[in-house]
């Protein structure tokens, strides 16, 4: 099956006052049609930068240092703003984290969604635009679209606002949808509804989705594949079943264990010791080594390559090297066969 999106060895750096921040380091992954890929990691690990660098929404101080981005087999790495504008909306579009700030508070909802429709279908008549807007509102589950059409964003609740943002993102029927922490600002009950909606739309329209989140618990519901990111690198990638039932990287263990669901009884919750490294001058070896209780000497010296576990499951940790000592995973199961 052909890959819709293929990212190869992508490195992105942002120039800051303190020096060059290497936000994304040597990231490779691919996305098939109609697939949901979840990218999980702590804040500051480069999840959002990765998404924005694919859409080329980064500030001018950011540069793609290395690597390539292919969409539908076409290399878009060197595309300029004008060419990117043709792709945005049609090929990929994005849902942002905070629905409060991504909508204009002074424009009626219907008109805001209509704006997106008009941009992509310039020859539509007023009636056609209206019809399309109502269709979109119905698609994302806004009840009474005709009445809601004339309301302002502040008359909507957080969940409803996020639905409106989704309607705008879906206006031109994109192939790839980036959802950057779409549920972080929402309640638990609404969160599940929005995730179900994402899944439903993905089934209906066949849109491939990249879901960015910091919570492994949340993405279990919708993700086909999960990529765990740490300090600008993907450290583990695999199907949801593989990553949840058979995690191999110590950082994935840490993320899983810090969920209250794994706090058996009432002892203290597990926390990953230390802080994520600054990406201005990333450490030489494995960036996670200094927080890793299972770190080997080689972790401080050399960057681990991606070890293959199955055809779809890869992890970057020296623990998977045949020479490494056998370590019992705290999640159950043995790391090294």
């Amino acid at each position, binding site marked *: 099956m052909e890959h819709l999106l293929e990212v190869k060895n992508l490195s992105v750096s942002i120039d800051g006052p303190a020096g060059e921040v290497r936000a994304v380091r040597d990231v490779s992954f691919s996305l098939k049609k109609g697939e949901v890929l979840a990218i999980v990691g*702590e*804040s*500051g690990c480069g999840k959002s930068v990765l998404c924005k660098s694919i859409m080329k929404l980064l500030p001018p101080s950011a540069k793609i240092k290395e690597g390539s981005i292919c969409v539908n087999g076409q290399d878009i790495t060197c595309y300029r703003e004008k060419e990117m504008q043709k792709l945005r909306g049609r090929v990929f579009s994005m849902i942002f984290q905070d629905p409060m700030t991504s909508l204009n508070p002074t424009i009626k909802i219907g008109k805001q969604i209509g704006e997106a429709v008009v941009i992509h279908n310039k020859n539509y008549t007023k009636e056609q635009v209206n019809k399309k807007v109502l269709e979109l509102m119905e698609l994302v589950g806004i009840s009474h679209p005709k009445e809601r059409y004339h309301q302002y964003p502040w008359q909507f*609740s*957080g969940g409803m606002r996020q639905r409106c943002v989704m309607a705008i993102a879906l206006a031109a029927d994109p192939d790839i949808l980036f959802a950057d922490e779409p549920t*972080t600002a929402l*309640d*638990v*009950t*609404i*969160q*599940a*509804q929005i995730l*179900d909606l994402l899944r439903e739309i993905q089934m209906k329209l066949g849109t491939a989705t990249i879901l960015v989140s*910091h*919570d*492994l*618990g*949340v993405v*279990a*519901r919708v*993700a086909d594949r999960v990529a765990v990111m740490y300090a600008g690198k993907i450290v583990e990638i695999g199907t*949801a*079943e593989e990553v*949840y039932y058979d995690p191999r990287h110590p950082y994935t263990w*840490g*993320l*899983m264990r*810090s*969920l*209250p*669901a*794994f*706090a058996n009884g*009432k002892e*203290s*919750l*597990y*926390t*990953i010791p230390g*802080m994520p490294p600054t990406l201005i001058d990333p450490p030489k070896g494995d960036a996670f080594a200094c927080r890793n209780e299972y770190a080997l000497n080689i972790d401080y010296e050399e960057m681990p390559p991606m070890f293959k576990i199955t055809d779809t499951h890869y992890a970057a940790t020296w623990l998977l090297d045949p020479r490494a000592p056998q370590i019992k995973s705290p999640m159950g199961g043995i790391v090294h066969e």
Partner: protein
Amino acid sequence: MSKEILLDVRHLTQQFHLTKKIKVKAVDDVSFQIHKGEIFGLVGESGSGKSTVARCLMNIYQPAQGEIWYKDVNICDKKEFKKHKKMLQTCRQMIFQDSASSLNQKMKVSDIITEPMRIQHITPPRGSFVKEAAFQMEYVGLENSFLDRYPSELSGGQRQRVAIARSLCMEPEFLVADEPIASLDVSIQAQIVNLFRYLQEEHGFTFLFIAHDLAMVEYLCDRVGVMYHGKLVELAPSEELYSNPVHPYTKTLLSAIPVPDPIRERKRVLQYYDGEGMENSVWTEVSPGHFAMLPAEGKGCSIS
């Protein structure tokens, strides 16, 4: 645990005016008690009035009706509040949700932490303000090198620690935390929750913890109250609430906790609650210490 009552909320009602004529009841006849030395959790979706309750308890809002007794003081009474103002403002402290906006961006961390002492004219027990700040920083797990930094240089978890240190420097008896972990990462959430547990054991303060994440509340709190549309619908010790929820809204909330297990999680069915039968519900005791809003017997709910 002692059963001494620290805070007694009686029939608290708070209204907001949308226009001159239209009012919204944000909190509607809520009564509960918080015992001394316990961690009390308040959960509910956004807009259910949790934060309004907290703000009433802290005298930020003046409630429309009802009484709040802190020890022997009715804090809703303006005269009594004035009389005991100094005691009340030092004994009670609050931690806000968004640490980015609740810390002054133009003040150094050490000044932020000791600002309450300056306001209340308290001589720092450890000699100087800087020493006091350094002590509190160490207490919440921050290095001394952060003392001269500004909040914008800190990460979200570190900022929240600064906010906690600020509230602790007054040695409060009663601490209110309004969604302190909602804007943090999961791994940082665990750190902060562990910190709360540790501090509560050390200090023995009474703690009101507001959240919408039921999983963390179960882990942290002794007793939990569930709010829905301004009403308290269920109140129980946390083990009892999680093993034996009575009110349909509590069941909805519990069904929404995500499980980190893809196969089980995809099968999980969400429940919905639309406020059915709320009108003629009465506050009943289901089992000792476990209260819930249930339809009055005999009448039943026939609105559906």
